């Protein structure tokens, strides 16, 4: 059980580069950049976060377990001449878990360069290419998707390039191409080149974005590319409203809404902004399970709950979310400027399992944040001895998890 570690969370949605050599090259490159400051218009700026964390779990598969981790996210930004910028970031960690050896790891998080023109910006490398104005769920953020189960995790990069055009005020047009690699997918060994274009417009009343992208076939043998159409809208009318959708079509005769992912949400705050409330609904057409299915249909056996999550084999595919209807509720209360408590609940509306977590953060002095998070998966089996649910203790692999962390920014 190693779900709490930052890198382990990242592994769920991206690629780890394990070779020590690669890391040495990255660090060497950072040092060289620093030492060759004469070509840089400004000294490189280093920043980041260093975090110590520990997690204890109560699991249905072996009682209590724990892990501890020392994690760092180190970022560098260097201006080159008047128009160039180099960005780099690495994640490094040392972790230890019950009955496991000390483990060190490192991961390239960002490495890209930017060229700033008069009306055109070009970015190329290993980077984040964000889309959409969604809140908890962001379906249109298709290249570096956020895992709603771990909203605080930094997002994995993608190898790609973007060319953004700013010829008209308030408008942005962008051409992009990226390798949309996703280890969850059925053909995870393949790269998944994707290219497309997007447009943004910001007015005093709303922000709107549309995108279209074409991706190499998921099944290389099919020869039929995947088409994506995305649309996102954020507007403010007393409360904040956000609509974020993505439609994908792979040429197959799938049921009508299978390719649709759509999230609609509303947020509002009261008490001079001290209490923030957000509710969002997600239609997840990609979900492998229909309303009549249960988790045994996903794993092809009724005995799926006899083994921990990492040992299960899905017969339908892997994903963050397996069903089609979800609710996401988030509330944040600022007790003071230094202390806040947030409660997040992810609800599966079909099997009525839910994953609530409560997080408290305190800033004892500038730059240091202490965090305590408690997660308790709940399903019908737990409450009434009914069915085991997707977000329940057996499927998530733990009855409860308590995480404590201390993070310093620099």
């Amino acid at each position, binding site marked *: 059980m190693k779900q709490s570690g930052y890198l382990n969370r990242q592994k769920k949605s991206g690629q780890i580069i394990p070779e020590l050599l690669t890391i040495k090259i990255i660090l060497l490159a950072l040092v060289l950049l620093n030492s060759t400051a004469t070509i840089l218009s400004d000294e490189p700026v280093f920043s980041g976060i260093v975090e110590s964390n520990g997690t204890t779990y109560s699991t249905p598969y072996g009682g209590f377990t724990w892990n501890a981790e020392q994690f760092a996210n180190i970022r560098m930004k260097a201006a080159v001449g008047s128009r160039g910028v180099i960005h780099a970031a690495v994640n490094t960690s040392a972790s230890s878990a019950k009955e496991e050896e000390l483990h060190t790891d490192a991961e390239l998080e960002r490495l890209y360069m930017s060229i700033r023109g008069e009306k055109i910006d070009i970015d190329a490398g290993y980077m984040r290419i964000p889309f959409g104005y969604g809140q908890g769920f962001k379906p249109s953020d298709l290249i570096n998707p956020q895992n709603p189960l771990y909203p605080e995790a930094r997002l994995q990069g993608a190898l790609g390039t973007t060319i953004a055009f700013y010829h008209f005020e308030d408008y942005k047009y962008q051409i992009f191409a990226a390798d949309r690699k996703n280890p969850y997918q059925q053909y995870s060994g393949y790269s998944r080149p994707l290219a497309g274009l997007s447009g943004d417009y910001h007015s005093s009343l709303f922000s709107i974005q549309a995108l279209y992208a074409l991706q190499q076939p998921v099944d290389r043998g099919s020869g039929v590319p995947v088409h994506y159409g995305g649309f996102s809208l954020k507007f403010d009318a007393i409360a*904040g409203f956000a609509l974020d959708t993505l439609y994908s079509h792979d040429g197959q005769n799938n049921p009508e809404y299978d390719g649709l992912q759509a999230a609609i949400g509303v947020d*509002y705050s009261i008490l001079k902004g001290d209490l923030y409330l957000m509710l969002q609904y997600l239609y997840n057409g990609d979900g492998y399970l229909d309303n009549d299915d249960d988790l045994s249909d996903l794993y092809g056996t009724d005995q799926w709950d006899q083994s921990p999550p990492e040992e299960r084999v899905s017969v339908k595919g892997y994903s963050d979310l397996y069903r089609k209807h979800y609710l996401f509720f988030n509330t944040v209360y600022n007790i003071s*400027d230094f202390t806040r408590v947030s409660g997040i609940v992810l609800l599966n509306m079909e099997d009525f399992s839910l994953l609530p977590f409560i997080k408290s953060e305190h800033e004892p002095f500038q730059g240091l944040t202490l965090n305590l998070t408690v997660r308790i998966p709940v399903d019908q089996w737990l409450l009434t001895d009914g069915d085991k649910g997707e977000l329940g203790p057996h499927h998530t692999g733990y009855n409860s998890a308590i995480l404590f962390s201390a993070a310093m920014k620099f």
Partner: protein
Amino acid sequence: MKKFNILASVTVILLFSILIAQNTPTAKSLLKSVDDNERYDSIKYTGEIIIEYKGKRFVKEFKAFAKGNENSFIEFTNSEDRETKYLKKDGRLYVYSPDTEQVMLISGHMLKESMMGSDLSYEDTIENERLSKRYTAELSGSEKTGGKDCWILDLTAIKKTESYPKQKLWVTKDNHELMKYELFALSGAKLKEYKLIRSKKIGNRMFPVESEIRDLLRKGSRTVFKLDNVVIDKPIPASTFSMRNLER
């Protein structure tokens, strides 16, 4: 002789009254002077916010650019908040966070929230419209404040939507500097208090370069603003106030 004395006394009193009246500005002209001194067409500076609250001290450093009442851009440069950026454009406020690497619109309902833990709300920071356009003024007296003789102006909001329906201003008699102001709710409750600590002559004006503001609903809290390298009314490229600059 007696008649002459009375006439002379009345004349002196009249002349003195005229003299005083001539030296007493109208509330309207005084408020215009305050606006002329403090409002700008464009400004850029580097700044420091020192927040003291419940025995803790937080220091934030930033670069700021503003143009008129509609556009402003702030980038934080202290290590904990580095690359956090705010853009005010067309009355809307956007923030870029380096942690999420994405721009987020700050919804109208969140504008009353404290900005970066300071005694100022987001709403306070995006307001630069001239007071004389938003309030009617009344001269209510004079008082010595911060060692200087000041006129006291009572302001009443013209629009009901104003965040602070009433304000009280202390304006120096000699050069019409804003020494102090208090912001009130409709109920009359005092919400915030501002004091000038230091001003600097920039061009023809005395511009506040160090000031203190207290949110009285946050007990024991104060925020000090320090401005350096202030450049007023020099051209700033329009691209500074763009989403593009925020995303960079």
